[in-house]
């Protein structure tokens, strides 16, 4: 796939050897062949990571989505980091950096998720300014196909339903307005009833083609990166120099779980009940459940346990805390026998000795789907009624609750951030979006520390004032 030379550092049009830009596709379906050198690889990869990081931030700062000013900013970024659109070297840079980053990002789940998310955003931006139909043909190899005339006629009524519910016009009832795809490949569209299911196919109306492309692309990347991972050992022995360079290509570390893994500050188990009042909602829900019922399921213990560990609860303190919390149902010796193992495991004292990091929002949402009655997972993915009830129960006023519930419908992390702002009024430290429960907690800590300092200052002031009065 790739040979390296060591002469040049910049990719210029005339220097591209053997690169065929006509095979370029915005979903990177073909692996390109060309010559380049190590420095070029490093530079393009670093640029791409920065570009992706910027795109993620751009999106986070405008969760509502697609305004034109956003598109302008986006194109500014792409030009800045990849080059001008019409320039052939842009395509090469784009492909080179994408494929290399696949290799760089394949090792850890978190890196991979971040990469896939960011790449999906990139594609989403690109599609918003392109005519979709020009891209559709590329997707037949991803398992999509058009309806046959016979299917189109037999399913007429179902297709009408799709047009009607997507605010389409009667004229849209055309065979080219639909694609079919195996239903397993479009879980989100199935979940929300945006497709008609027929014999294992999901029939998609053109209003959802963009979602469909993104969804297909994510599946494809997921699959492709898994392949890269399996092949990485061979890659390392075959191209040690490239592997070494890629080791230096890392995901921007705003949300680094490791950061929260070994917390230097210590807290005592007795502090938890008080602290829990300003925990993120997911932890608060589990804490409340644990205290009132004296139990928490395995996944919940993992999610809440690692969080507590992250905020500085030592293993001994943790064992004490959980034993006490479970004491409604289990005796101390039963606890030691049945449950203590898991907590020691989490702290790396059992099994393979791996210490578990606190889970990020992304990982929580991925690993713990929010079931109807379960308390672990992300509460902003609950149905609105249950979320509303819980928020009101916690004493959040109805208008604010409405605000949070509305946000949760589209952006769980925005909803969480709103909750943070509610718990911490007039806070001006947190400007971004919550993406990690421990980040929530750290921000909360900073907030209260500042308030403490303020209070101390004003107390000192008033003391001084008092002193003045006495002197007078």
């Amino acid at each position, binding site marked *: 796939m790739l040979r390296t030379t060591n002469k040049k550092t910049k990719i210029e049009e005339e220097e591209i050897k053997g690169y065929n830009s006509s095979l370029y596709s915005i979903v990177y379906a073909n692996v390109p062949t060309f010559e380049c050198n190590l420095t070029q690889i490093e530079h393009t990869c670093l640029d791409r990571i920065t570009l992706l990081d910027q795109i993620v931030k751009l999106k986070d700062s405008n969760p509502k989505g697609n305004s034109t000013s956003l598109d302008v900013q986006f194109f500014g970024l792409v030009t800045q980091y990849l080059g001008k659109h019409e320039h052939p070297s842009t395509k090469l840079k784009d492909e080179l950096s994408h494929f290399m980053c696949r290799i760089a990002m394949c090792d850890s789940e978190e890196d991979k998720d971040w990469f896939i998310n960011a790449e999906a955003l990139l594609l989403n931006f690109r599609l918003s300014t392109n005519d979709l139909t020009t891209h559709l043909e590329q997707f037949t190899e991803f398992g999509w196909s058009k309806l046959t005339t016979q299917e189109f006629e037999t399913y007429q*009524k*179902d297709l009408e*339903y799709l047009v*009607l*519910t997507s605010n389409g016009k009667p004229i849209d009832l055309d065979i080219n307005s639909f694609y079919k795809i195996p*239903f*397993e490949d479009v*879980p989100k569209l*199935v*979940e929300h*009833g945006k497709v*008609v*299911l*027929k*014999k*294992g196919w999901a029939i998609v109306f053109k209003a959802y083609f963009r979602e469909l492309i993104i969804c297909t692309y994510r599946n494809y990347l997921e699959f492709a990166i898994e392949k890269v991972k399996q092949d990485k050992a061979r890659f390392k022995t075959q191209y040690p120099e490239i592997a070494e360079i890629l080791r230096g290509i890392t995901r921007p570390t705003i949300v680094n779980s490791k950061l929260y893994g070994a917390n230097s500050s210590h807290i005592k188990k007795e502090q938890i009940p008080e602290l829990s009042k300003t925990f993120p909602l997911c932890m608060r829900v589990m804490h409340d459940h644990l205290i009132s019922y004296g*139990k928490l*399921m*395995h996944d919940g213990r993992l999610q809440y346990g690692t969080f507590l560990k992250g905020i500085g609860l030592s293993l001994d303190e943790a064992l004490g805390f959980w034993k006490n919390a479970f004491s409604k149902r289990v005796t101390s010796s039963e606890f030691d026998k*049945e*449950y203590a*193992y898991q907590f020691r495991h989490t702290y790396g004292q059992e099994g393979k000795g791996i210490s578990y990091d606190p889970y990020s929002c992304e990982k929580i949402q991925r690993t713990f*789907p929010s*079931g*109807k009655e379960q308390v672990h997972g992300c509460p902003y993915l609950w149905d609105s009624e249950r979320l509303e009830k819980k928020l009101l129960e916690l004493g959040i006023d109805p208008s604010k609750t409405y605000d949070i519930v509305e946000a949760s419908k589209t952006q769980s992390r925005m909803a969480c951030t709103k909750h943070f702002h509610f718990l911490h009024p007039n806070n001006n430290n947190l400007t971004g979006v919550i993406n990690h429960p421990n980040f929530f907690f750290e921000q909360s800590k900073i907030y209260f520390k500042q308030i403490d300092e303020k209070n101390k200052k004003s107390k000192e002031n008033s003391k001084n004032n008092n002193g003045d009065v006495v002197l007078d």
Partner: protein
Amino acid sequence: MDTQTKTNDNDINDEDMDDIFGDTEGSYELDNKVSLRVYYDQYFPFDLIYEWLSINSLFGHGEASQIRFFERREFSSRITKMDGTTFVTRNRSFSKLDDIKDYLKGRNPNNNSIDVAERLDIGPIYSCEPIKKSMVTDYTPLYKEIVFDIDINDYNDIRVCCSDTSLCMKCWGFLAVAAKFVEMYMKECFGFEQLLYVFSGRRGLHVWVSDQRALSLSSEARANIIKYVKYERTSVLLPILQRGFDELFLPYFEQHVLEEQDIFGNAAQYKNFLSKLPLEVRVGKKTIIHPLDQIKEKMLEIKDQATSLEKWRAISDYFKQNNLMEYVYDIVFHYTLPRFDDKVTNHIIHLLKSPFCIHPSTGKLCVPIDLKDIDQFNPTKVPLLNSILSTPKVSFNPYRASFKNYIEQMKLKSQQQISINDPTSF
């Protein structure tokens, strides 16, 4: 009785157990234990269960692949000893049919300490044989039938004929209509054809979908299958729900639920029914109507002179005239849409009781049911363990024969599917 639960597996404790198993209550008398042993020894159709679980092997074609597929299936059981101690054994797997038989019969044949298994639960196929779990690092569930579990006690708020976990022919109707919808949904939307319906022995119905594509679905896809047909208020129904409404739910509601569950006669039922009606609805730009009050009035007018059906038709006409079809759907679906136990379907590792078990607390045989007979099925007339042993010709053989027949059908369908998927095979 003071029971104590022990398990042979460190990773699982009792809470998780409750989550993975369905109902787990019940105990066994000595007599029953002896009978149960005879049942396992002479009647339980191990050969058919083996075929049923392995015909659609995803490890290739032929006998060898079938065996391999079967070997990696997780089985589990619950054994109550004479002293009241309950043992749960998980992660069991078998390579020979005789081994399961021996396992279910228990190891101590003397009358004072029979540890015969109360039930057999079926789990997924893992990446290696479950008994070898501790010897490998990568132990993941790979395949499982899609299963649906519908329990009648989830309908308690809308039925008056029975309460708690009891089940009569009237409320069986809820489960029967659920089964018919599952059949329609699976066939039309997914093209699945190999569906087995099993009475769970006490309060519910299990559906097993064994098509190859069904076996390999992810947990996410399974959850979405359930979510796709969740109804939320709308005037334009998803095509499959529309078909279900027209062909199954509305007819069942009008012909059975109204009368059999005494919607208008029983005070509590009527109150519940009214609570489903909207207080006020905006129609058009300026008009607000008050359906609840208007319908209450209407009902008082036609009181006693009308049948339940006429009363209901008056209500549904009222909504239709006001262009508020969604409220008709609200009511009908509330009373008829299947109330699945979601987590049984969603979690691939969930275990479900095998067909032909004897239910531990009712002693009833968990019989497969042919969908075309489902309306006539009477859950109170299901063979009991004792009757199986005394009159097997009537109480057991027909069920075995019909299960066997189902498996023959499965084989035919599987062959057809292979010939469709693989052009070189014929």
